[in-house]
């Protein structure tokens, strides 16, 4: 089986061919989404979940820490945005900053509890904390609105200098979300290909050895969790804007499991681009399978189960293996001549 480290990291410029392709697809989506039979809002959803999945994969794929309660931080971000709009001021950047801040603080506190743990105990504690947040969101009626959530969250206008863009326009909102996602993905590319990314991967491969080499493993694990929660918080803030509401459902164990499924199916364990592929595949499966049958999740679940059984490196791993298999097909033929 191949792992993330088999796909070599490149320092320097993040402007590689896949990145160019990704940005191009993200930038042109509104022009062809309807043409291929999809709809504008799907683009918004996909961009938000790519942002979430990217942050999640820093923890899941790169650091090898399996969080099954990550939906909580998305939810906290959404509530952060909503409560800021309702309670403090109607402000776009203020709301998004509040979303990031709320999720970061929650992530930092939870990360401090988690970072001494390893393996399955780590995963179990993330479930425990995730459930605590979910349950709190359900029960704290005066703050979160309980099961219905916060409603009527406004989408403030985007103001850049003299321009004022009304984000209630779906196309404008898509560009806004896509822009933030693109920036975040470039940022994430820089993080995982910097020395930090190498340290996190070392922790995944062998935590004990990383500690003996002299890294303060606890601090790096804590940092990975906190940064991952911050990305989730930003995604949550955008999600609250998209839905114009914030509700506890996204924080449930079910939703937290779905993000794990997306990232794994896409190939987050072996590739930087795995989460992107996974998110796109999930939403297209939801819309295409969902259009054919009520029980689309049954089929998606079956695909997932088969994938874990036969190809746990996911879609990105499949593409990588196929790309690598192609050149050696020529090489053995050339070999006899040289011998």
């Amino acid at each position, binding site marked *: 089986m191949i792992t993330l480290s088999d796909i070599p990291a490149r320092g320097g410029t993040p402007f590689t061919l896949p990145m160019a392709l990704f940005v191009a697809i993200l930038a042109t989506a509104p022009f062809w989404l309807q043409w291929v039979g999809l709809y504008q809002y799907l683009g918004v959803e996909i961009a938000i979940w790519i942002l979430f999945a990217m942050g999640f994969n820093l923890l899941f794929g790169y650091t090898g820490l399996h969080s099954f309660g990550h939906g909580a931080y998305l939810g906290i971000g959404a509530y952060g945005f909503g409560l800021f709009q309702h309670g403090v001021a109607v402000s776009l950047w203020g709301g998004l900053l509040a979303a990031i801040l709320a999720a970061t603080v929650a992530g930092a506190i939870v990360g401090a509890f988690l970072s001494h*743990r*390893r393996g*399955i*105990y780590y995963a*179990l504690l993330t*479930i425990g904390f995730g*459930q605590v947040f979910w349950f709190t969101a359900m029960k704290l009626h005066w703050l979160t609105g309980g099961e219905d959530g916060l409603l009527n969250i406004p989408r403030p206008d985007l103001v850049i200098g003299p321009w004022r863009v009304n984000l209630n326009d779906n196309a404008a909102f898509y560009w806004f979300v896509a822009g933030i996602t693109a920036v975040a993905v470039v940022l994430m590319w820089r993080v995982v290909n910097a020395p930090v990314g190498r340290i996190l991967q070392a922790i995944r491969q062998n935590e004990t050895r990383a500690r003996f080499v002299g890294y303060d493993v606890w601090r790096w694990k804590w940092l990975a969790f906190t940064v991952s929660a911050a990305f989730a918080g930003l995604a949550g803030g955008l999600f609250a804007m998209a839905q114009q509401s914030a509700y506890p459902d996204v924080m449930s164990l079910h939703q937290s499991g779905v993000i794990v499924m997306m990232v794994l199916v896409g190939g987050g364990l072996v590739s930087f681009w795995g989460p992107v592929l996974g998110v796109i595949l999930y939403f297209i499966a939801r819309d295409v399978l969902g259009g054919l049958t009520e029980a689309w999740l049954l089929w998606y679940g079956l695909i997932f189960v088969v994938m*874990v*059984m036969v190809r*746990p490196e996911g879609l990105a791993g499949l593409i990588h293996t196929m790309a690598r298999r192609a050149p050696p097909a020529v090489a053995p033929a050339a070999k006899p001549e040289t011998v």
Partner: protein
Amino acid sequence: MTSLVPHVVNGLTLGLLFALIALGFTLIVGVMEVINLAHGSLFTLGAYLALSTIGAGWFSGTPFGIWWLDLPMASRYFIGLALGPVLAGAAGMLLELCLRPTYGKAPLYGLLLTFGAAIVVEEAIRLIWGTGEQNMPVPQMISGAFLMGGLIFSTYKFYAAGFAIVAILMVWLFLERTPYGAIIKAGAHDSEMVRALGYDLARLRLIVFGFGSALAGIAGMVMAPIWGLRPHLGIDVVIPAFLIIVIGGVGSFWGAVAAALLVGMATGITGAYAPAWSLMSMYILLIAIVGFRARGLLGRRSALEN
């Protein structure tokens, strides 16, 4: 203080029922080091299958169904109690066959595969039995309620708790006092040596998984009249089971039972003061205990930590 008594009694019965739910789960974790997230779904599946057995299910309307419904409730109930778990056990065996490619890899894959399986089973239940909540009938002789110290208790809950005690003791006796139990425990301890001694480990795992799933089915059948039956019951069930294992310590039988009682008591007593938050107490308990004792109350070192 007297007002606390019913809550303590409630908590204890709840704890015993939690122990029953966690029984099959701890068996599979202990022997195979697989966290079976589909446990809750198998629990629900067992209960639904039993429900269909009691109510003639797909045969309703046929001569067989009419003859079947003429039988006394109690006999149909006990046939359901046997058949539901057996079928849940068969589903568990199928799941074990799917799990085989993940053995020897990181425990994450087993966790993910069973999570996928949980979703598949849940969706299948939704498809077959519909999304609405259903009621599990109970024979006359164990239903009803009684008064004790001026408070009303449900008779069925006490029968269920008694059943849980019997089931826990029987599983314990099976593990400790029979040669099969010895082989299963040896397989958990040193699988290579067990294989070298000539035991078919693959078959052993299949049987253990089937047995654990059947226990889930039994628990589902017993719990259904108390909690009601809905397709997404699985996730409400697997979480306590799983908290109990972590609090008790992975691989420890009595640790799990003690943890179950503890969780039940915590839920029951919180219920006395803040009913809305009673389910929260188990998560707080988890964080408090695992925060200080990494391997839970009675846990030992496990491959799952790597």
